[in-house]
């Protein structure tokens, strides 16, 4: 039995965490953002040194000073942002850093053989000779797993592996994880999605404030208990109550036959003032692309968009913002924020015209006032408006993005995966903000891959498949089964 024990009493970030992982088990590691999960994993991966404590593998003391040492010890990391070279194909990525050689030349045939062997072992089929940049997120993840397995990883850490996967893809991932387990690999599984843990994990360890609060077998650890351990208190109802839509509420956003092939193939819907429309569907069904077309992030090739009865002909995001559309993108780091700018600068960025005085200079004092107001109202956890956004946690960053769009008087809010990768506490705050916007009469469209979120937060649910509206449900009629059946095309 390979037995891994390690403990690092550390300062602040990690305060004496002890963790044990057995061969062939999946240990789920959960905790709010800032609980110490990533620091702990970085130490294991050799990306950061521990101040104190020790790591044992098979009962032996080991030193992990750098990523190479971790690799040699059979520790593999699969981060949320993959470590793949986009321009290389699957074979080249799987063998990267340890390429089979034929003299001084690369031995492509051997590489194909070795990579295929690993893939076959996992029961994965992939296009092998296209750039990985053109593979889906799920396929890229499989390339990562294959890469680690070929290096004989015995411990694999997966950080939020299901964050961008659809239900089907998650099933496939879980079956792969089961094969890894059967092969004796120990897996540390970090996830915010508590509901999936019973399906995949053997034990759950909860981290809070740099300490391991509790470890139990999954069967003895109901989700409510997990949440209580994570936040240190019982959470009230997960989703806020939705405000009713006024009977005479006007249609704020109307979309007709929106076209942007291949992703969007004729989508129509209407959203009334105060209404939250949830959009469900598989990854790649065209949900994000629909939002992007409305916001003019990509220009639609056909169809009509109307805002409060006025035709919107946006030629750039600037035009759609002018018309009252706020687009909160799914990837806040790449699309929502300027990480090297301060909280204040990010909040005012999209509406700087409001902060320019008569001499055409930016009114710094007014900026500070507005930024402070939002920091207080949204409880943005930052020492000041002058903090760089880069230094904030995921949930806090998301609030900065929200604040940015609240500065303007938008009538339509498009949310794409508004709570991806953020902690339970921030999630609940974001939900309340969305509901508050609806109460004030905004029309809200919310795309989410988390079914409970769509079910709990939307008045009406649209299911999109292959760029078309496959079905629409009222809140009362919608069930997870129905949505999944329509989304996957298995409905009668």
């Amino acid at each position: 039995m390979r037995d891994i024990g390690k403990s690092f009493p550390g300062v602040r970030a990690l305060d004496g965490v002890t963790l044990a992982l057995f061969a062939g088990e999946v240990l789920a590691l959960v905790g709010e953002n800032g609980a110490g999960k990533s620091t702990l994993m970085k130490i294991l991966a050799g990306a950061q040194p521990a101040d104190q404590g020790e790591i044992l593998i098979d009962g032996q003391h080991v030193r992990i000073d750098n990523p190479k040492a971790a690799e040699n010890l059979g520790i593999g990391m699969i981060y949320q942002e993959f470590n793949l070279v986009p321009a290389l194909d699957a074979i080249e990525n799987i063998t990267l850093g340890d390429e089979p050689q034929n003299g001084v030349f690369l031995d492509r045939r051997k590489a194909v053989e070795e990579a295929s062997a690993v893939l076959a072992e996992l029961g994965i089929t992939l296009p092998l000779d296209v750039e990985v940049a053109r593979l889906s997120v799920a396929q890229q993840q499989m390339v990562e797993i294959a890469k680690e397995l070929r290096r004989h990883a015995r411990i694999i850490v997966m950080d939020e592996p299901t964050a961008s996967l659809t239900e089907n893809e998650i099933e496939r991932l879980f079956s792969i994880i089961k094969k890894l387990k059967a092969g004796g690999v120990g897996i540390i599984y970090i996830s915010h999605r508590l509901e999936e843990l019973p399906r995949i994990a053997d034990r759950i360890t909860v981290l809070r404030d740099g300490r391991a609060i509790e470890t139990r077998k999954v069967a003895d650890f109901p989700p409510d208990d997990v949440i209580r351990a994570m936040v240190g208190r019982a959470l009230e109802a997960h989703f806020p109550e939705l405000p009713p839509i006024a009977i005479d509420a006007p249609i704020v956003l109307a979309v007709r036959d929106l076209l942007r092939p291949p992703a969007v193939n004729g989508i129509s819907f209407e959203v009334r003032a105060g209404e939250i429309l949830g959009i469900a569907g598989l990854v790649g069904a065209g949900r994000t692309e629909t939002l992007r077309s409305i916001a003019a992030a990509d220009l639609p090739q056909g169809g009509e968009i109307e805002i409060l009865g006025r035709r919107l002909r946006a030629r750039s995001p600037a035009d759609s913002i002018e018309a009252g559309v706020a687009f909160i993108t799914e990837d806040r780091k790449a699309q929502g924020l300027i990480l090297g700018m301060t909280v204040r600068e990010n909040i005012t960025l999209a509406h700087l015209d409001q902060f320019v005085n008569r001499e055409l200079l930016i009114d710094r004092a007014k900026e500070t006032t507005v930024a402070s107001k939002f920091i207080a109202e949204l409880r943005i956890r930052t020492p000041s408006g002058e903090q760089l956004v880069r230094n904030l946690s995921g949930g806090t960053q998301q609030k900065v993005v929200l604040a940015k769009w609240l500065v303007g008087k938008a009538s339509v809010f498009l949310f794409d995966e508004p709570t991806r990768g953020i902690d339970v506490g921030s999630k609940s705050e974001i939900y309340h903000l969305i509901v508050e916007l609806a109460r004030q009469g905004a029309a809200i469209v919310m795309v989410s891959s988390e079914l409970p979120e769509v079910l709990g937060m939307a008045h009406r649910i649209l299911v999109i498949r292959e760029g078309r509206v496959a079905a629409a449900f009222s809140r009362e009629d919608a069930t997870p089964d129905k949505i999944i059946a329509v989304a996957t095309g298995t409905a009668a």
Partner: protein
Amino acid sequence: MAEEQVKTVLTEAAEAAHVKQARLYWLRIVLAALGLLVVVVLVNRAAGGSFLEPSNLIRVLRQITYEAILAFGQTFVIITAGIDLSVGSLVSLTGVAMALFANAMPFHGFALIVATLLFGIVVGAAAGFINAVPVVRLNLPPFITTLAMMLMAVGLSYKLCHGRPVALASGDFTNIGYGLFLGSVFTKLHLPGIPIVVIWMVVIAIVTSVLLTRTRFGRYVFALGGNEEAARLAGIPVARIKTLVYVISGVCAGITGFLLMANFSSGSPNTATGDELLESIAAVVVGGTSLMGGRGSIVGTFFGALLIGVLYNVMNLLGIESYTQKIVLGAVILLAVVLDELRKRYLARA
């Protein structure tokens, strides 16, 4: 009521953090200034006291003027994560073009000076615009488009004047090139006068610095360099801002061309095809502007240019010959950016 309290507490905490940050910032500047002072005094000793003479300090400022103005324009481009390799050639091109223009004009005096300067600025701006079009429309790397412009501009400037410097027929420009600012006043006070070109540099520094730090345009330049996609989705007119950045660099090249033409009383195709370009880029980078974009300042660039100027000056005073000077300059630039990076890493860890 509880909400109000939360707000007050938060604002106060923010205020305190801000004050602390500002204090740290000034502390750093004071420390740096003290360190510089010690070095300067030591160097001055070694040079027999000649370094700190007012006339020598003014000579340094005068020497860095042209590179500094180019570097101010370059700062905008580099903050957007771009680069403008054409500025040196554009100085030559605008110089020759302006000299031909001035000689062809029928009028004299102030009108001629203004018309010539405007002409040079228009030529520089046009070249900057041409630099920007492929970058903005086709997303081509600015390294290539401005490299192409560098070659075309220098070729064109030789062609325009058939390879010979164009002497200015009018003496109207002499004062700008050689003159002193309020010369008679300074002479009465037994002080060396400040060259007019230095005044130009200072004015351009102030204008560009205000543009970069206090206006919407400046904020957008930083946003664009920090994250172009996020900037676009925030409604920032990315194409327009990017174009303007290259136009500003071209305009700075035009102004530099004007000042050098006035100084030489002629427009020459080989005015600034030597180290000017690379030294101006070095000034920007040594001044703390990131080649990756999103970070930088005009003040930093000025001090970067000043550092390079002081180095040359000191080496001259110490009698170091010019080949060695180049080696030392290169080493110092490398050292400066390495130290800056180490400092940043240290801060990130603390």
